[in-house]
């Protein structure tokens, strides 16, 4: 008697063996890529003003390298201004649901040259493949495109989206490195950095490594306290202000 759990296990083994058979039978060249980050934690402390994360790696056969850093999904709301009675005010809004809060690409060459559009679509690479297209019920045609472009433009301005801003540089025949710049407004959460080994526009190997961006220490405690104990936080803020006002008065009287 085979239980459901055994059934899954069997399936899994089958899939695995098929996959290995395929890769053996496949005539495509097999690459092997190794890569790691200079740090797996970006700590936002009191003196945080953005950070740089280096990625080092190596490939054992020639090819191109593409690195994608993707932040946790979030909702972004865009506002559009128009002129009402001579004054510019927000008159329309559009929410993009479950889009990457951070997205950066670094590569050894221009994206169009080292990858095919089919490869990019299959692996969610590039702004056309990360769910930025609005569902038809929200907007269509040029209107949808305007909203999408405006989102990308604004997020690129804030440094949350970066397209080919960084280069992947070979340090030798096999060793490569790249650097990502995180702005001080970097969203917190778990990031994934995917490194792709490409040849002839095809991905021949890939590796993904996590990166955690989080507020640490006092900054984290203040944020958590403000969001979970808003009323008490307010009382503490008032108390601090009262005390400092009083101290100011005392200093003022003596001086």
């Amino acid at each position, binding site marked *: 008697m085979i239980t459901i759990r055994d059934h899954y296990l069997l399936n899994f083994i089958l899939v695995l063996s098929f996959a290995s058979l395929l890769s053996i039978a496949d005539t495509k060249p097999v690459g092997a890529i190794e890569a790691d980050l200079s740090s797996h934690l970006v700590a*936002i*402390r*009191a*003196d*945080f*003003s*953005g950070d740089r994360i280096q990625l080092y790696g190596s490939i054992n056969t020639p090819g191109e390298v593409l690195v994608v850093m993707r932040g946790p999904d979030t*909702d*972004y*709301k*865009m*506002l*559009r*201004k*128009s*002129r009402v009675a*001579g*004054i*510019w*005010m*927000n008159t329309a*809004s559009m929410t993009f649901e479950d889009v990457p809060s951070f997205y950066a690409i670094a590569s050894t060459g221009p994206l169009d040259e080292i990858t095919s559009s089919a490869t990019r679509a299959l692996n969610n690479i590039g702004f056309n493949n990360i769910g930025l297209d609005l569902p038809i019920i929200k907007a269509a045609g040029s209107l949808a495109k*305007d*909203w999408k472009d*405006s*989102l990308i*433009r*604004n*997020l690129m301005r*804030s440094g949350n989206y970066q397209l080919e801003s960084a280069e992947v540089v070979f340090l030798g025949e096999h060793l490569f490195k790249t650097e990502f710049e995180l702005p*001080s*407004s970097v969203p917190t959460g778990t990031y994934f950095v995917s490194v792709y080994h490409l040849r002839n526009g095809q991905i021949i190997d890939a590796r993904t490594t996590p990166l955690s961006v989080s*507020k640490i220490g*006092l*900054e984290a405690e*203040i*944020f958590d306290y*403000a*969001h979970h104990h*808003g*009323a008490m*936080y*307010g*009382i*503490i*803020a*008032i108390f*601090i*202000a*009262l005390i*400092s*006002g*009083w*101290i*100011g*008065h005392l*200093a*003022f*009287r003596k*001086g």
Partner: protein
Amino acid sequence: MQVYLPIAEISVDIILLLAMGGGVGLLSGIFGVGGGFLMTPLLIFIGVPPAVAVATQANNVIAASVSGVFAHWRRGNVDFLMGWVLLIGGFIGSTIGVGLFTFLKSLGQIDLVINLSYVVFLGTIGLLMMLEGLKAVFRRRRSGGASRGKLHEHNWFHGLPLKIRFRKSRLYISALLPLGIGFFVGVLSAIMGVGGGFILVPAMIYMLGMPTAMVIGTSLFQIIFVAANVTFLQAAQNQTVDIVLALVLLVGSVLGAQLGTRIGAKMQGDWLRLLLGIMVVMVCGKLFLDLLVTPADLYSLEVTL
């Protein structure tokens, strides 16, 4: 040196913040105003989200008012009865104001309302101050002495019911009047992150007819509580009070205010009023221009907090 603001979620140069606190503190010391109306637009200008700027500034107004009220209290220049009546209006007004703030934020119109409020209220007050300062300066040139201001006039609002005797201010007027003024200033305080002294002081002098000596102390007294109410509600409802930002600004403004008071004591009142008027009009002009000029990008990302 950068400091990361945990609620605003941006990092700002701490020297810049100290300088801003010091500069605004200096001006508030010279002119005897809270300075919230200068600080809030400045904070927005350096990239602090408007909602955080307004709420944090309300917290700073508490400290500035506390340090000022003691001196007036010792001289007996606080009309507590008037203060409490204003305060009841202020509490209701600021509570409704914070609710309105939350609602406007959800509509995506809070930035516009903050800007418009600044343009309308500060523009009016600034122009009046400038004109009056100019008039006084020219009058003194001609006659060689300051003329005596007229006493308050009797208007329709002196016929309102619920009359109360305010002994300290030597007034017998309807409680509805200070209640209404308190309410109005409370709403502004919540939306603009200001103490409201710039509205309250002229309203108390010209509308209530309070003795000028009593006005500053009494308005500071009621501003403390209204600002505390705004801080509490903003923190509880919108989570927009940034303690780190407030503390850094406080240090600068306390030091600046000390220096400012000494400079202010050496300057002539009319010139002070003229200068303050010019400054207020300039801040307004900049905000007004921002509303009129076609923005570089019609689309903007809503700041979520």
